[in-house]
């Protein structure tokens, strides 16, 4: 089309668009007269205008982010809802808004809270939840639960209700602001328990207990709020009726393991959440430091990490940030938590140790059956403690945990547990003897050294021996922690003996690694790990301060800084992480200038440039990242020239080429990306040729092929991409054959196979895709067999089956297509659809959409058996409908991105097509 022609079309379009819809056709015909093509152009534009995706209307930047929590237009002051005049907005959730209001016809202003559904959020499901909350509140009459006063429907037809307005602050803030003692806090907490217990007696589970839902008034009266996702238990609800968490994502920090994992929620889940609230109120710390909000990560953390005892968590400082609902960040320190509670840290520790540790942790046990069996029992135990009576709660014994661990990991653990128990026993006996023998100086000294040696052996040798056993992580943590306890006390005795201090720093690093080193098997407690790393760092800083010229100590310090920096970057604190890495760089630049001949120092210098380059990619500063990668490149090329045969240098140079390639790709320089990746590839191919059995060289060569494939695929050079992925596949196959237990190889192979299938399918080579899709399925099934509770993998399997079903359908293989689809559907039905788990729901949408496509293909296939097409259209419709239901729900909750929102229209259109076709085929 020429610009001139376009001007003509544009002109007609603009004129016609200005007219009322019913006059457009006539005007259009008048305007176009004999020019049929002009008519068609304008008509299609009018049609497009009617459907124009609304996303263009919102600025592009907004599409680049999650739209969750994007505020809609709020009601302004003075607006009337029924007889209530809005004063201001006081709260807002995913679907509702709460306003402070006053009754218009009252002589003196009585303040109330009006809750109503957000405009545009009034889908059936939301309205149902809303009415549910209103019904629950209507049945309640309790001094510690906000009262329902009135309700109705707005002029727009949205339901609303009016509650008692609670003027107060969240319970944790209240306690801190007033500086309440532990006893006062416990008494207040017991009042909260009364409210929850009252709800339970009325067969209602709250399901979202957290400090911001417990407000305390100036007079010190607590009120429980927000039954928005509460659940009414019906007498028929037995063991089998899984209560799923409601519409809104519940607050992960307070979710019980069963809630987080989408299992049955009972009154004991509220006991758990109350336990978390009490934990925070007593200690000022959150029991978990969640480093991710991804639902399955949260579920895993909550299900696996044992919270630290309240009496010890109060010692932590520095990086454990807690974030309140408003995103305000507070950093609890030992001083701050003890000042607002018992005055001194020591007094607070004594107050918490024993009973309160046990009570709080009993409420928070992972298995509901081992918690307090009611809120009343929980509250009663607190009363017994307050009256100095013996409490019900017992320490979760080591023996119990050991037993649990063995149950969970029968096969692998026997040896490890044995080593562990013997060791701990041994260490304890030795220390005990050491204490008794204090009088005899020589013997005591020998004992001292024995313990030191043993603690180090436990930490390094024994720990390393069991490190790779499956399921060993929690034993590792105990081992390392216990060893550390002994080293700690030794260090206290030994004063500032630098050698011992160095050992201690190394020990803290170890503990950090076990607790949550990123990119390695760990307990996933990355903030806890950070605490340990920082302790190590502090010791090393002191060592360097005492002896600033010592190169080894400075290198140790640099290693510590680097660990902290990388950990911060991994936990999305890139900016702070970068500061640490820059300090490392500074140290190495100094060391390198002091000793220009020291190649080890220069080697490290290159490595830190590399680290910094990678770190800078995270915030997207590609130019600066590239600059650093190039600095690393200069050094590494120099090493290569000096030692052309040295494999270590060749490998690290290849890494730098890879990094430069990726950085260029991300800066839109595809040619440069390909060129650098090619250099990495050549180096790796040569390394691999020199040392053909080296698995690492094969693996990184595979990564280069994969990058090449990704770049080519992006450039739409599908055939070259395919060729690269085939080479990657050969390597994956070979690595898996060499080590069939290698989980990374299994997942790599599955992924590569699927990519090849997709690329072939893009080329229309459907018959060739089958073996690849089958291989991908096989690998997923292997992963699933090793982790049967991993629902994500099971949903990926259903995706893989749906893909196979779709492919068979395209090839006209009716029986296999139907069989794959059937299996995919069965899998989908077997995995609980937890509305709170967004990632899993996305996978469901994908599966149902693939299935819909498969059935459509079957129905419209030219060789479709007569009489079957109607069924296929209906099946397709059903699949699309299920997809649409989930999409709609996600959209209602504001979770979808723009592309997915447009998907709603696409799927809706498909349903209409299926309906039309089904009618025709009848």
């Amino acid at each position: 089309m020429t610009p001139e022609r376009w001007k003509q079309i544009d002109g007609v379009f603009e004129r016609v668009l200005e007219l009322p819809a019913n006059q457009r056709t006539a005007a259009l015909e008048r305007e176009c007269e004999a020019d049929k093509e002009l008519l068609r152009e304008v008509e299609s534009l009018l049609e497009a205008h009617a459907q124009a995706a609304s996303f263009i209307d919102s600025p592009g930047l907004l599409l680049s982010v999650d739209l969750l929590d994007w505020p809609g237009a709020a009601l302004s002051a003075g607006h009337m809802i029924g007889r209530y005049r809005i004063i201001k907005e006081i709260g807002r959730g995913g679907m509702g808004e709460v306003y402070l209001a006053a009754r218009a016809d009252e002589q003196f202003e009585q303040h109330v809270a009006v809750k109503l559904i957000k405009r545009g959020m009034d889908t059936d499901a939301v309205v149902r939840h809303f009415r549910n909350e209103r019904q629950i509140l209507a049945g309640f009459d309790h001094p510690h639960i906000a009262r329902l006063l009135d309700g109705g429907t707005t002029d727009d037809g949205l339901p609303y209700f009016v509650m008692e307005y609670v003027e107060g602050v969240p319970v944790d803030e209240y306690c801190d602001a007033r500086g309440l003692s532990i006893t006062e806090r416990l008494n207040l907490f017991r009042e909260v328990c009364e409210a929850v217990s009252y709800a339970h007696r009325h067969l209602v589970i709250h399901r979202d207990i957290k400090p911001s839902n417990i407000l305390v008034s100036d007079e010190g009266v607590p009120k429980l709020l927000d039954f928005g996702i509460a659940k009414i238990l019906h007498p028929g609800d037995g063991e089998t009726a899984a209560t799923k968490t409601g519409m809104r994502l519940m607050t992960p920090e307070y979710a019980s393991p069963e809630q987080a994992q989408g299992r049955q929620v009972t009154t004991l889940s509220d006991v758990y959440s109350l336990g978390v609230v009490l934990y925070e109120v007593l200690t000022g710390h959150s029991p978990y430091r969640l480093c991710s909000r991804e639902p399955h990560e949260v579920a895993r953390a909550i299900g696996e990490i044992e919270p630290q005892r309240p009496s010890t968590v109060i010692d932590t400082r520095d990086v454990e940030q807690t974030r309140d609902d408003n995103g305000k960040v507070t950093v609890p320190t030992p001083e701050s938590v003890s000042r607002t509670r018992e005055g001194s840290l020591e007094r607070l520790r004594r107050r918490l140790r024993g009973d309160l540790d046990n009570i709080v942790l009993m409420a928070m046990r992972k298995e509901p059956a081992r918690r307090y069996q009611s809120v009343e029992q929980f509250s009663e135990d607190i009363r017994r403690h307050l009256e100095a009576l013996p409490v019900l709660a017992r320490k979760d014994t080591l023996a119990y945990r050991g037993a649990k661990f063995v149950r969970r990991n029968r096969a692998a653990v026997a040896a490890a547990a044995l080593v562990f128990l013997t060791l701990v026993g041994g260490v304890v006996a030795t220390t005990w003897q050491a204490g008794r023998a204090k009088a005899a100086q020589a013997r005591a000294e020998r004992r001292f050294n024995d313990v030191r040696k043993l603690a180090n052996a436990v930490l390094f040798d024994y720990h390393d021996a069991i490190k790779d056993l499956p399921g060993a992580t929690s034993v590792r943590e105990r081992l390392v922690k216990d060893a550390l306890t002994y080293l700690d006390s030794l260090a206290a005795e030994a004063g500032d003996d630098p050698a011992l201090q160095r050992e201690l720093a190394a020990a803290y690093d170890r503990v950090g690694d076990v607790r949550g080193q990123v990119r390695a098997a760990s307990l996933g407690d990355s903030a806890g790990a950070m605490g340990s790393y920082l302790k190590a760092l502090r010791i090393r800083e002191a060592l360097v301060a005492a002896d600033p010229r010592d190169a080894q100590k400075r290198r140790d310090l640099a290693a510590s800084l680097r660990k902290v920096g990388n950990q911060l970057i991994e936990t999305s604190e890139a900016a702070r992480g970068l500061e640490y890495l820059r300090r490392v760089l500074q140290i190495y630049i100094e060391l390198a200038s002091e000793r220009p001949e020291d190649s080890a120092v220069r080697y490290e210098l290159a490595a830190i440039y590399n680290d910094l380059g990678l770190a800078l990619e995270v915030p997207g500063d590609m130019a600066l990242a590239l600059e650093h990668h190039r600095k690393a490149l200069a050094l590494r090329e120099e090493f290569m020239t000096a030692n052309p045969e040295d494999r270590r240098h060749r490998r690290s140079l290849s890494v730098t080429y890879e990094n430069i390639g990726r950085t260029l790709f991300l800066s839109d320089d595809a040619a440069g990306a390909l060129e650098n990746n090619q250099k990495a590839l050549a180096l790796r191919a040569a390394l691999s040729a020199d040392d053909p059995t080296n698995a690492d060289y094969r693996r990184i060569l595979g990564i280069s092929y994969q990058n090449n494939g990704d770049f080519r695929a992006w450039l739409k050079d599908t055939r070259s991409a395919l060729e690269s992925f085939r080479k990657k596949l050969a390597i994956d196959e070979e690595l898996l054959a060499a080590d069939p237990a290698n989980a990374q190889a299994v997942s790599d192979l599955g992924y590569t196979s699927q990519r090849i299938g997709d690329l072939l399918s893009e080329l229309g080579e459907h018959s060739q895709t089958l073996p690849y899709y089958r291989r991908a399925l096989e690998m997923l099934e292997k992963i699933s067999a090793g982790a049967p509770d991993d629902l994500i993998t099971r949903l990926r399997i259903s995706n893989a089956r749906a893909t196979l079903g779709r492919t068979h359908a395209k090839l006209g293989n009716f029986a296999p297509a139907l069989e794959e689809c059937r299996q995919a559907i069965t899998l989908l039905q077997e995995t609980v659809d937890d509305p709170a788990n967004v990632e899993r729901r996305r996978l469901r949408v994908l599966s149902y959409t693939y299935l819909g496509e498969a059935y459509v293909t079957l129905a419209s296939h030219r060789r479709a058996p007569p009489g079957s097409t109607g069924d296929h259209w209906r099946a397709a419709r059903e699949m699309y409908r299920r997809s649409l239901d989930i999409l709609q729900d996600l959209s209602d909750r504001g979770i979808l991105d723009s592309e997915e929102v447009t998907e709603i229209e696409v799927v809706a259109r498909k349903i209409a097509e299926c309906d039309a076709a089904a009618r025709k085929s009848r």
Partner: protein
Amino acid sequence: MTVPSRTHITELLVAWSGGDRGALDRLMPLVYNELRRQAARHLRRERLAHTLQPTALVNEVYLRLVDQRRVSWQSRAHFFGVAAQLMRRILVSHARVRGAAKRGGAAHRLTLDEGVALSPQRDVGLLALDDALVKLEALDPEKGRMVELRFFSGLSVEETAEILGVSPRTVDRQWQTAKAWLQREMTRGEAH
């Protein structure tokens, strides 16, 4: 790296508005970096802050980089024109990174030196829009610029009108046409 001085950037802007094409070449990377930095900051903060306003973002960058006492309104319009183009580049390459990560699933698995794994992020539908916009620009550059300002820079109808030197009503009308055209183009893209 230091942030280039305001005086320097202002001079470049003034020189470019005065017809010096070379000044633009030097200006672009500076503005690009600042926009990118601010965009990244906004994207990171987005979960905490409940107010993300793209207009504010471009304005913020303008205020940071340019000494307003020394530039005319034409220069301001020029600046926003450039900023819109650059925002487009930033967002599109951002979407591309996300897209690559999403398509790849496990892609961008990089070799560990002491490496850091990139976490896959979510994709957006910007890329299709960008493709369509390239075609619209060829046909109707004026509407192309308008879409850049409205969509990529997040400017309001009034702000866009001011910068293009037309009435808000014209912007509104052209916006309807551009939207329809892009929608049609993007749907066609799907069908192929």
